């Protein structure tokens, strides 16, 4: 029984498949021959049941909708072992990132962290605001107290360019 038989209710989505594959630069997911070397070294296999070789196979068969609506594409720890070790340069890592990009475009399930990262960078240029840190003696310190220089934030023109880049310019 093939993987396709197991998913009898699902229909392959050819366009979505092409879309996901077109977002992968240089790597060749289509060349995957299912040796599972990626999965055998995957950081997220044991705890989150991520199996990179299956992700590649599902995309090859066109079951992209199923992946986009699942949490599984968000379980990658980005350790890059699959990309490094793949004998076919299929890079499951790059495909997973491409699938995440498609999920965002289609407004499918996206963890809030990533969208708030975008708004934060739009607002200040950086991923997060300056944090205060507490020492063991319960002293609260910041950059000023620690003698670190002021942060040079980018100006408004950066925001415009970043918006354009997000829009695909």
């Amino acid at each position, binding site marked *: 029984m093939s993987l396709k038989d197991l998913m009898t209710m699902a229909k392959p989505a050819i366009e979505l498949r092409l879309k996901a594959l077109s977002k992968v630069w240089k790597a060749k997911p289509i060349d995957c021959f299912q040796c599972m070397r990626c999965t055998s070294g995957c950081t997220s296999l044991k705890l989150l049941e991520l199996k990179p070789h299956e992700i590649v196979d599902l995309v090859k068969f066109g079951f992209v909708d199923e992946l986009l609506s699942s949490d599984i594409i968000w379980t990658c720890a*980005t*350790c890059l072992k699959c990309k490094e070790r793949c004998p076919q340069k299929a890079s499951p890592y790059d495909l997973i990132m491409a699938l995440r990009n498609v999920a965002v475009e289609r407004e499918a399930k996206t963890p809030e962290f990533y969208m708030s990262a975008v708004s934060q960078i739009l607002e200040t240029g950086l991923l997060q605001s300056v944090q205060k840190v507490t020492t063991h003696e319960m002293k609260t310190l910041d950059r000023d107290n*620690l003698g670190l220089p002021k942060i040079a934030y980018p100006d408004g023109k950066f925001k415009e360019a970043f918006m354009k880049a997000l829009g695909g310019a």
Partner: protein
Amino acid sequence: MKVAVFWGCRILTEHYGYEMSVREVMPRLGVELVDLESASCCGDPIKSVSDPAVTYLSARILAVAAKTGLNDLLVPCNRCHLTLSEAKYRLEKDPETLDKVKTLLKEEGLKYRTELRIWHTIDLLYDIVKPETIKEKLKTPLSDLNLATHPGCQILRPSEIGRVDDAEAPKKLDELVQILGAKTIDYSEKLDCCGAALLSTHQDAALSLAGTKIKTLQSYSVGGLVVSCPECHLMYDVKQEAASTTVGGKLKLPVFYYTQLLGIALGVEKRKLGLHLNQSPVEELLKKHNLI
């Protein structure tokens, strides 16, 4: 030697111990740091959102760095180092993306320059400064310390684009620790990921990854762990207590940035290295060995 330095978001806004120790040790080893005139995110967290936006953000940093007129850029964060290296590699090989990026950079009057060399703390110290130079300047050798190193994922892979050390058998960080007089152990979990990228979305899994590694290291009886990335430090140091609840058992392993240890060995005062900001018991270990 003069190098431009790009810190990235995590170091500038939270992981001050790394920034402080890099700022202290580099000039003592003949490396003058030049801050960029404006700093924005390297693009790493946006990889999941929009690939073109990542390339723009990285190219912007490279263009701002080029404005310093220097040929070398130090990027102490592993994730920023990967993202900038990926962008540099892509812009060399993908003229279409390069054209788009150039147009976006014009908005700020920035120009992309290809010849910039990107360094991480580890390879700058190992390949340019060289361990011999460090050895000559040692004031307080860290004899008696038995440590483990965790180079982190992103400075090692993917080797295709050129990384800081060998993807499967990294040795530079170990050698840099050994040159300070300390011993390092060889252990089979060395390449295990800290889990930082999962912290915001799958917290238990992330803490379990970090906690399991710390627990294993404690069973090997090492005195401490040495990292060179703010994200790994976040997981092993800041989140160590939370991770001990997740994996069970008491976790109490001192976790240092390499540059903090280097600073101690070079005789820098501990406050200037931000050691008091580490959450793990680093000062206890150093006191035990009369190093502070």
